[in-house]
């Protein structure tokens, strides 16, 4: 988007390249090293925080493709995640399928479920569609509980076995971190690739003007369903990872509130950009974590204040953050980041 | 190029009190995009003035600047003044502008599509603070002007044909009892028969009610048939102004807006293959 002057692209190929400058390479390598060393310095709780944030990133990138790219707002992402978790649990706990195949099972199971909820998109549009995804949440809970306990464990949930990778059981925060990291990286790349592909352009076309899309040969219904599928594939992967990390799947883990949070992450991060999904997920999880730690401390300083004030504050702060971003920075953190990056890259000669 | 034109065509217009005067305005969108530069124009009471210009010249922006409707697109008059009836109205509240007697019919026939024709008319009476009987009378006047509307008064307006909608939105604007009617491309997408019907109605409004009209129109032939004077806007500047007669005799205007070739005969599209764009007034 923003390129420094003098950095002309010689050909279409260059014009389309993802990473253009040496600095970008350097930054990328630095980031990779940082990610690898992180658990060594962070300690258990912060490592687990990173793991969960990573899992969130996977789910939010999926939602970004659905909402930011294809323009179909969904409040069902958390339910799709749940389906992924359950399918993974069935594969791992009931059928004894070894890691990482249950994750694929989760992703595929969620994809099918998600596409089912994409089908009404053929006729239903806008808010009407967004709110029909609400039904996904209710149907998910309803079905899990009512299907025979032998299927999804009914109300008891399913315990996940410890994943074993190359003969090593994964049961420490560090282990889970390294287990999840490749998936997060893969999700980021997949997101960027989809964004810049023919598929991504078709999604954007559907979002911006479905009539025009249809008339240029884009089967709008098909692409809407596919984008639901992709979003749920990401959600399913995330759900499966979360099942391993939590060592348990239970339908109460996957709430409507979580879906709302995911949407908040998109807003804070920035719509339509993968970087935005990543930054939004990190930012909101961080706010949540810091408030959980800091809230009680804060309350300690306020005479007469009770603990039950500290915790609901998380929602107050979050809601306020979302609103402030919408008003003052509707393009989200990704936009701020890019502006900053541009500034530093051109420094000390900003033109 | 900014000739001072005497209103030869219009008896009594002279330098008498002007209804609207736009003086050297500059308009920007979002604080940065400069669209109008130093635009001045005026409309006398009872006058029909045409505003011509190619696409993107800033015609709609001019009208919206007068009616203050640019505000909802983050536009502002950043220089100059707009006076109507002796008051400054630039960057005013659009609702107040309507109350003062300036109403705009926006391009593209904005029917309130889920409301009936009559409800559309009723909505427009809001600004006037008329009593029931007066509203009724106004509605009947509109029906008299456009008898089709009376026939379809209870029809959902979204399902009217384009021509009927155009009549409705003009009639609707009249419900606000304007002194100045701003029309944006009333002939857009209408069939030839309807174009003349609409313009005849515009002329009647002007004649019978005495409403002054500033009309933006691409179809220069029709516009100049009814207008007393006209302006040409290019790239956000007024590049020409004059009476009907003056404009109709201008070579550039003939070539670019009326389709009359240098030879004086009507140009045909068949022989434009090697045509090169050129605009003398930009040169």
């Amino acid at each position, binding site marked *: 988007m923003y390129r420094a002057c003098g950095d002309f692209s010689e050909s279409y190929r260059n014009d389309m390249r993802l990473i253009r400058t040496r600095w970008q390479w350097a930054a990328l390598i630095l980031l990779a090293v940082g990610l690898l060393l992180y658990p060594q310095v962070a300690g258990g709780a912060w490592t687990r925080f990173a793991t969960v944030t990573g899992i969130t990133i996977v789910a939010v990138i999926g939602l970004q493709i659905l909402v930011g790219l294809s323009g179909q707002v969904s409040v069902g992402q958390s339910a799709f995640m749940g389906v992924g978790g359950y399918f993974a649990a069935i594969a791992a706990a009931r059928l004894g399928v070894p890691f990482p195949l249950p994750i694929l099972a989760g992703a595929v199971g969620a994809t099918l479920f998600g596409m089912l909820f994409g089908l009404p998109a053929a006729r239903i549009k806008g808010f009407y569609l967004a709110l029909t995804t609400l039904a996904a949440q*209710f149907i998910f809970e309803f079905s899990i509980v009512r299907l025979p306990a032998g299927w999804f464990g009914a109300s008891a949930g399913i315990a996940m076995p410890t994943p074993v990778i190359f003969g090593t059981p994964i049961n420490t925060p560090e282990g889970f971190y390294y287990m999840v990291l490749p998936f997060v990286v893969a999700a980021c790349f997949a997101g960027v690739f989809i964004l810049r592909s023919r598929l991504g352009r078709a999604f954007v076309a559907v979002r911006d003007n479905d009539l025009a899309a249809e008339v240029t040969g884009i089967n709008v219904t098909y692409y809407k369903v596919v984008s639901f599928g992709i979003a749920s594939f990401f959600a399913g992967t995330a759900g499966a990872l979360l099942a391993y990390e939590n060592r348990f799947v239970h339908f109460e883990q996957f709430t409507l509130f979580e879906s709302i949070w995911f949407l908040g992450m998109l807003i804070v991060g920035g719509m339509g950009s993968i970087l935005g999904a990543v930054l939004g997920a990190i930012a909101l999880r961080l706010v949540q974590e810091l408030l959980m730690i800091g809230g009680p401390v804060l309350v300690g300083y306020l005479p007469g204040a009770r603990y039950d004030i500290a915790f609901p504050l998380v929602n*107050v702060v979050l809601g306020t953050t979302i609103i402030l971003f*919408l008003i003052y920075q509707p393009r989200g953190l990704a936009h701020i980041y890019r502006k900053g990056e541009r500034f530093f890259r051109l420094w000390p000669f900003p033109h | 190029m900014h000739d001072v034109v005497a209103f030869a065509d219009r008896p009594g217009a002279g330098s008498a009190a002007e209804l609207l005067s736009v003086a050297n305005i500059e308009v920007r969108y979002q604080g940065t995009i400069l669209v109008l530069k130093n635009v001045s124009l005026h409309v006398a009471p009872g006058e029909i003035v045409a505003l011509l210009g190619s696409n993107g010249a800033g015609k709609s922006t001019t009208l919206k600047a007068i009616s203050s409707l640019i505000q909802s697109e983050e536009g502002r008059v950043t220089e100059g003044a707009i006076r109507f009836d002796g008051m400054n109205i630039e960057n005013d509240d659009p609702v107040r502008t*309507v109350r003062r007697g300036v*109403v705009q019919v926006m391009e593209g026939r904005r029917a309130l599509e*889920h409301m009936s024709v009559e409800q559309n008319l009723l909505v427009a009476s809001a600004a006037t603070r008329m009593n029931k009987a007066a509203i009724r009378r106004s509605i009947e006047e509109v029906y008299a002007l456009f008898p089709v509307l009376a026939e379809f008064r209870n029809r959902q307006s979204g399902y009217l044909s384009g021509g009927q909608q155009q009549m409705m939105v003009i009639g609707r604007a009249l419900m606000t009892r304007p002194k100045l009617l701003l029309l944006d491309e009333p002939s857009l997408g209408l069939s030839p028969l309807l174009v003349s019907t609409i313009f005849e109605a515009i002329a009647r409004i002007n004649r019978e009610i005495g409403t002054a009209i500033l009309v933006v129109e691409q179809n220069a032939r029709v516009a100049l048939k009814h207008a007393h004077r006209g302006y040409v806007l290019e790239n956000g500047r007024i590049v020409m102004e004059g009476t009907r007669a003056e404009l109709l005799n201008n070579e550039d205007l003939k070539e670019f807006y009326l389709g009359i070739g240098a030879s004086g005969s009507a140009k045909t599209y068949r022989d434009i293959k090697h045509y090169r764009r050129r605009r003398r007034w930009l040169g």
Partner: protein
Amino acid sequence: MTLEIVLRVLYTGVTTGAIYAAVAVGFNVIYRSGRVFNIAQGEMVMIATFMMVALMGAGFSPWTALVLSGIGMALVGLAVERLVLRRLVGQPEMALFMATLGVLLVMNGLGHILIGAEPQIFPELFGRDRWRIAGVNVRESVLVGTALIVALIAGLAWFFNATRTGLLMTAVAESHQTARSLGVNVRASIAVSWAVSGVISTVAAAVFMGGRMVSGDVASIAFVALPVVLLAGLETIGGVLIGGIIVGVGQAAAARWLDPLTEGGASLIFPFALMLVLLMIRPQGLFGWKHVERI
């Protein structure tokens, strides 16, 4: 015997349907004016509940509390409009929707802070009598509440369709720019709709909460009422009453005859299923506006 059961299902269906309608009409009043789908409507009901509880706790009579919190909620509605949505004018509808998600979170947090720890029961404001009529257990508070809601919605429908101000607000619903060009004060119109919606949520709360435990969970009534909103259509006012009754009666019937088969829960899913099926047939809902698409 069977007639009795049918009567009971109808009674339950109509009275719960009326509550759904009361919540749903709060959504629609706002949507019509500002094209804002206010997902925080349930939280408005919750705040209204606490306002009334607090006022009654402070010694006001129930009816005074109702009126005062009606005024209070109108102010809350105005505040949300003023502080959040007015600053987002011109943004796409989805951005406005997201903003109300933010409002939802804020109100949800504040609600939990306000709740306090004591479990409290919300009084039955509209009478405490219970009668048995034709084999149906009828509660006075429910009957009066239902009547109140019906009157409220009928009044709103009349207001929007027959009065001049209502007509102007409908014009605003169609297009802000067009309404503005005709001299309609769009801002005022939107602000009024938020205030009205605040009042509606107070009435909804008063009726819905009668005899119930007060908790932060009250807000979830909005999600239960959502199928009614979509089924009836986002722009309708009077239509929500019909939508509410359809959903309410359907749900009561599902509770009577389907729940035993599914061990409960069927009645919870039923409104969503009905909504999905109906929207597949009529994507704009029963009474929603269908955009005339001229391509």
